[in-house]
């Protein structure tokens, strides 16, 4: 997949849904980059996952913009729901550019305090840091190792989104 498609999709989602301009920046994932991780898994002829990661306060600011309200003071199920929807929109648009006939999971949002927590047995295909007026966030495309048409979903601590 052309990495530009992923970047353009992210820019479009944030611009359309939150009136927020974002752009890719040079930055590598660090241990302090994120406290929340939203993921959608894609399966079929191509198996992998799309991750959206940012810290909790950033997620609260995104939720405020998305819902046109003051940002919540703490990470709530509502904040997780917004982060999940953002990953869902990016993933849904991304998968149509990857291959035909792919299925996508509903989003899960997990606390990343357990840094070793795996998402799937995947390798990073693309990873972008984005900057915005609200601060940075990361988007990662994982491709499952040795894919044989099935995606290994890993255990995650998922927030309820309702």
């Amino acid at each position, binding site marked *: 997949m052309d990495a530009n498609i992923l970047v353009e999709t992210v820019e479009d989602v944030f611009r359309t849904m939150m009136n927020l301009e974002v752009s890719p920046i040079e930055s590598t994932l660090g241990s302090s980059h994120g406290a929340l991780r939203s993921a959608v898994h894609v399966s079929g002829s191509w198996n992998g996952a799309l991750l959206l990661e940012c810290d909790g306060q950033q997620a609260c600011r995104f939720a405020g913009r998305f819902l046109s309200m003051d940002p919540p003071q703490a990470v709530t199920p509502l904040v997780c729901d917004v982060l*999940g929807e953002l990953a869902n929109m990016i993933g849904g648009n991304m998968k149509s550019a990857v291959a035909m006939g792919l299925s*996508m999971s509903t989003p899960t949002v997990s606390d990343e305090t357990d840094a070793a927590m795996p998402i799937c047995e995947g390798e990073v295909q693309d990873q972008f840091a984005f900057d915005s007026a609200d601060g940075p966030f990361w988007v990662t495309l994982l491709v499952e190792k040795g894919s044989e048409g099935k995606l290994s979903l890993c255990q995650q601590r998922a927030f309820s989104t309702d």
Partner: protein
Amino acid sequence: MDILLVDDSKTMRGIVQRAIRQAGFRGLSVTEAENGSQALEVLRKEQPKLILSDWNMPEMSGIDFLVKVRASANKVPFGFITSEASAEIKELALSSGANFLITKPFSPEMIQEALSPILGK
């Protein structure tokens, strides 16, 4: 009931309702359901002017919901609002009886364009 809005995300149901208002459709009665199964229960009691549904939902997906609606000879206008953006998904939706498909991310203008022919604005 004017619109039956089906989405497993409470957040997205709120966003869609806001977009409907921003598109100029005010004062509409909107009933919400979290998935296709729940929406079918609603339809047993009342007929909306329009159904707006997500595609990717637990318990019963949007396309399964649409197929069941059409199988019951219900011809209510049906539109998807989904992040599923591929041509094959759109083709499947339309061939299964959907009237339109709006891709997320969406703007109020996109909502207006899709809903106007049905709701008469």
